[in-house]
């Protein structure tokens, strides 16, 4: 077989995730302690797990409606109404997806054709650009900077808008930086976008995890933005349900209608048991979420201070469960830093460069670990830095 000619060039050109690449290195080192996982260390709240068991016992194992159980769509709409003060029609404006990831894929595929440009603030999660490329579009990075708290500024946005711009990805709270867009920041972005034909794909998967009294605000809440915003979120992070593969997307009906066709042919319907469990999670597990967020917050403060104390300047994140310390003072690239750290001290963190060129000079550290695990890992990183200085 001539596989090279079999597989289209644009597929072969896609790079595997840089996070994944690092995983291949880390897994061959014995006794590694990891600070690189992007998923909660908590288990799914018991009430949701119990509901899944109950649903299995009852034998509710058939497909659901393409867009998901209507009860779950209603629950999601109700939740969004309270959480981001935006109303959606559960019949026509919501799809229950296989994780937030599928929702991102649907949004890009429904919107992008060859020649289109998609603006992607970076550093950010790894999946946006490859999907855009697959559709023949061009992902245009917008660099966000530590001095701007890694927020997207109106000026930086304006600079990158062209007549070809169709979509802006807005990944906040941000993985990997932990940056959060405040209401004022969003209002400035909205001001740029109103009156254009640009749609926002707002990836709000970490929305429930904000700290320092900062509350999540969605750009969909801004005047005139609901009609041009696709809100993407899910159950993975807030409810510690990563393995259940369940997310959702809400947006204006003309876009959702098109996305639903893609979802229908690709997925049929999201996992049924997960959907029933998600209803319980969203309706009954607010206290569990609150508890998890409090725990993350304590660890966040510990880790930020840990890095600052050891001389790796660390922007104070206001959301998600990552810190993004700057390692430029070591003179190493982020890949070198991570490789040496894992070989010499057996601690795995992810190179910032995996999240776009602008992530170079930083590493992503997850604090979805126990305090004891974190203090052990921090002590090893401190040793690593001290030995570098010798």
């Amino acid at each position, binding site marked *: 077989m001539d596989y090279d000619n079999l597989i289209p060039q644009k597929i072969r050109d896609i790079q595997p*995730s840089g*996070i*994944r690449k*690092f*995983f291949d290195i*880390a*897994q061959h080192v014995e006794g*590694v302690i*990891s600070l*690189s*996982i*992007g*998923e909660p*260390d908590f288990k799914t709240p018991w009430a949701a797990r119990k509901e899944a068991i109950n649903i299995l016992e009852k034998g509710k194992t058939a497909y659901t409606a393409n867009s998901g159980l209507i009860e779950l769509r209603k629950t999601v709409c109700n939740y969004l109404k309270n959480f981001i003060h935006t109303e959606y029609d559960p019949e026509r404006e919501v799809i229950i997806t296989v994780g937030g990831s599928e929702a991102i894929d649907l949004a890009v595929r429904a919107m992008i054709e060859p020649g289109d440009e998609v603006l992607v603030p970076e550093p950010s*999660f*790894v999946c946006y650009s490859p999907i855009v490329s697959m559709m023949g579009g061009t992902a245009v990075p917008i660099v966000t900077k530590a001095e701007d708290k890694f927020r997207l500024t109106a000026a930086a946005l304006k600079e990158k808008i062209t007549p070809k711009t169709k979509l802006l990805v807005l990944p906040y709270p941000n*993985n990997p930086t932990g940056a959060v867009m405040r209401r004022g920041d969003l209002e400035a972005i909205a001001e740029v976008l109103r009156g254009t034909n640009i749609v926002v794909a707002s990836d709000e998967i970490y929305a429930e995890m904000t700290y320092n009294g900062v509350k999540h605000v969605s750009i969909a809440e801004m005047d005139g933005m609901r009609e041009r915003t696709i809100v993407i979120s899910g159950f993975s992070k807030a409810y510690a349900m990563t393995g259940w593969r369940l997310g959702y997307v809400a947006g204006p009906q003309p876009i959702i209608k098109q996305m639903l066709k893609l979802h229908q042919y690709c997925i049929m319907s999201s996992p049924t048991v997960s959907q029933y469990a998600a209803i319980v999670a969203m309706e009954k597990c607010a206290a569990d979420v609150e508890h998890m967020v409090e725990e993350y917050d*304590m*660890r966040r*403060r*510990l880790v930020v*201070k840990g890095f600052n104390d050891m001389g790796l300047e660390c922007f104070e994140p206001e959301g998600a469960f990552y810190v993004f310390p700057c390692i430029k003072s070591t003179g190493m690239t982020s890949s070198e830093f991570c490789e040496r750290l894992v070989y010499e001290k057996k601690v*795995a963190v*992810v190179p910032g460069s995996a999240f776009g060129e602008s992530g170079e000079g930083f590493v992503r550290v997850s604090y979805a670990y*126990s*305090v*004891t695990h974190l*203090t052990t890992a921090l002590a090893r990183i401190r040793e690593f830095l001290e030995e570098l200085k010798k």
Partner: protein
Amino acid sequence: MNTNKLLDLLRQNARLSNAELGVMLGESESAVAEEISRLERDGIIMGYSAIIDEEKADENGVTAIIELKITPVKDCGFDDLAHTIMAYEEVDSVFLLSGANDLSVTISGTSLRNVALFVSERLAVLDGVLSTTTHFILRRYKEKGHIFNEDNFDDRGLVSP
């Protein structure tokens, strides 16, 4: 100061420094030190000890949980006998229980035989002890919230999104 949170953190890891505790609780180092002193003074924090996998630390070492049925004594209930038992230095802990048994006593020893002898010669013969049931600990899975062999417990991958 969120005292419950502080106690919770100390339960997880009593070796966290006051500075670390302070950062996590949003309090100053000195405020944490003061609060810990108060908790010690008030007898809420009774001491600090390590959680040790005894079977690993000493291959022959054994720990047993012994449940005792005893006769309560007029005026002092179970206290008198509990005090006698807790005075033995071999005894790690003594709890008064609800339910079928009255006292639960934990004992560590250097061999099965030593522990068994201690039970038969020192505990069973005490006035007021009606019966003893000895359970030897064969393996520790979790103690005070700490999972033994934690390496195998986190089923998440090394690296993920």
